[in-house]
């Protein structure tokens, strides 16, 4: 069983929950940028959260299926079409052998997900099927999809059992808004900012620039000030430089004090720019949904509050899966 890729779209890749344990040699976690949307897509088609999906960026693919298939499209709002006819999103769809799946124009957000019963069945590399394009590992031959690719689909799990509901109730579908409040825990090198700099970070409006991809998102805004100092040996000459260090996924660096960059799931694992805080794990999916132009405020919370938010997200996912008819 496979999908034939007639048109690959802008940047369509195979992703799953990611590949941890190798960040110490610079291999990023990768995985679906919007884990929540990918997971609910998997739930709709009877997969576990671990199965690989196709992540579509802005412009999705045109594909046909070799055999009958059960799919669901979740994530950013877009018209889903089967043989040219519009079908609902966040809903399980039955495809017949030869059917063509295609997409309209995205109406918000950045990425949507095609989950298929059985999952995308590319080989695991270092414990994950996720694509890490820069290192050319994982996914479909280590790269984004191209026209002519035949993407393998696995056999259905649990003898093809499907959940009771065929759609995700509205209250469990995330918003894809043009305004976001992103919760961060201050730390790492925030003490290197001036008081005004820190204040500016937390009280200014920042806008996502077009320089945003799986590695990170760059924001424009008023800029911030770094404290002047005599730089330590081995750090660069700019006050935003540090001796090259590991970068937390979700951390915010502000090279030269101009544009904050949030590192995301394909992050470079280290470098010489001071980080001033880190997006909490519960808000990483939110950041993944931010399209260029999204107005963003950074809200500082404590580590304890971040842990509460983490539990709340886990509970939301459990409830969503329960509403679909999974879990108990």
């Amino acid at each position, binding site marked *: 069983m496979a999908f034939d890729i007639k048109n690959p779209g802008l940047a369509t890749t195979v992703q799953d929950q990611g590949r*941890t*344990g*190798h*960040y*110490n*040699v*610079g*291999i990023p976690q990768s995985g679906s940028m919007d884990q929540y949307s990918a997971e609910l897509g998997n739930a709709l088609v009877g997969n576990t959260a671990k199965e690989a999906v196709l992540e579509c960026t802005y412009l999705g693919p045109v594909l046909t299926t070799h055999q009958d298939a059960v799919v669901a499209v979740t994530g950013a709002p877009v018209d889903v079409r089967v043989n040219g006819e519009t079908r609902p999103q966040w809903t399980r769809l039955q495809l017949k052998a030869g059917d063509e799946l295609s997409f309209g124009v995205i109406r918000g957000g950045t990425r949507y997900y095609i989950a298929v019963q059985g999952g995308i069945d590319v080989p695991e*590399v270092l414990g994950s099927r996720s694509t*890490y394009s*820069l*290192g*050319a*590992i994982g996914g479909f031959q*280590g790269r984004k999809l191209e026209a002519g690719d035949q993407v393998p689909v696995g056999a259905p799990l649990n003898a093809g059992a499907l959940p009771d509901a065929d759609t995700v109730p509205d209250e469990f579908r995330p918003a894809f808004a043009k305004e976001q409040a992103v919760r*961060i*825990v201050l*730390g*790492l090198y925030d003490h290197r900012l001036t008081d005004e700099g820190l204040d500016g970070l937390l009280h200014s409006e920042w806008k996502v620039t077009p320089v945003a991809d799986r590695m990170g998102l760059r924001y424009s805004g008023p800029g911030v000030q770094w404290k002047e100092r005599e730089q*330590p*040996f*081995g*750090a*660069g*000459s700019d006050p935003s430089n*540090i*001796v*090259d*260090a*590991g*970068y*937390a*996924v*979700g*951390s915010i660096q502000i090279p030269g004090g101009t544009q904050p960059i949030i590192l995301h799931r394909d992050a*470079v*694992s*280290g*470098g*010489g720019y001071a*980080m001033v*805080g*880190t*997006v*909490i*794990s*519960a808000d990483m999916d939110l950041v993944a949904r931010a399209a260029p132009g999204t107005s963003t405020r950074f809200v500082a919370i404590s*580590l304890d509050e*971040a*842990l509460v938010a*983490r539990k709340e997200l*886990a509970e939301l996912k459990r409830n969503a899966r329960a509403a679909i008819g999974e879990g108990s």
Partner: protein
Amino acid sequence: MSSPEPAALEARYTWGGDEFLFVEVSESMSLAANFRVMSIAAKLSAMQLPGIVDVCPANASLLVRFDPDVLPPSTLEETIRTIEGDLTHHHDHSLETRIIEVPVWYEDPFTAEVAERFREGFHQEPGGSDIDYAAKVNHLKDAAEFIQRHHEQPWLVSMVGFVAGLPFLFQLVEREKQLEVPKYLSPRTDTPKLTVGHGGCFGCIYSVRGAGGYQMFGVAAAPIFDPAQSLADFKDFMVFFKPGDIVKFRPVTEAEYNNIQAEISAGTFRYRQVPVTFDLSQALADPEGYNQELMEALNGV
């Protein structure tokens, strides 16, 4: 090596959100600080604590990723503080590692071609080569002297990362002999694969083609990241370097470079390498004498 600040001061602990703990051993780079980072990382990894996801030693700091649902943040911090305290009282300053000879074609045409495309607005001296500039800012006579200084003393892999398998290298010489070169004014969007680069006090080898801001001096002749794991040196893992590896660069000519390419194509290339014990006190007391000993280990290979 005369490091003004012994890295015995207490490290700084700070959170990277709810999944990362960052431990800054020292603000400035020194061999002692790096050694301490590696010691903490090794001891923490050996404990195999449930909930530890990644232990990432860097030049003078350590980044630990953890799952707070399994390992409470306070427990992780206490654990690392205990390791740190124990290290201060027990001076075990030796590291079982290896020394590896890495052939380099200095002043090669690949980096020259890319450098040519990133001069005005990117480079401090758009009219000259990266290596001429590096020689000048280090007050050396010419490119040849810089190359000599670059390969005659070995380097320590002080960190692996940025992208998959990229080693950061710190030369094992006194601070006043360290080569220091500013990064490009603005990063390039292209860097040839295997470029031997330098920024600040760090050398590096770019494992994959891509963006980069380090000055470019040459290309390493053999792969350091091999996802297909086709060469024998990659049998166990696709990434060649580990923190703590010691690297001795060997300059090669175009003809030697081409011979190595043929060996790689035939699948027969092997790095010259030998296990060594690296002793911090000896390295600090007499860097060049101790380096000589380390490099002699390669002679029998």
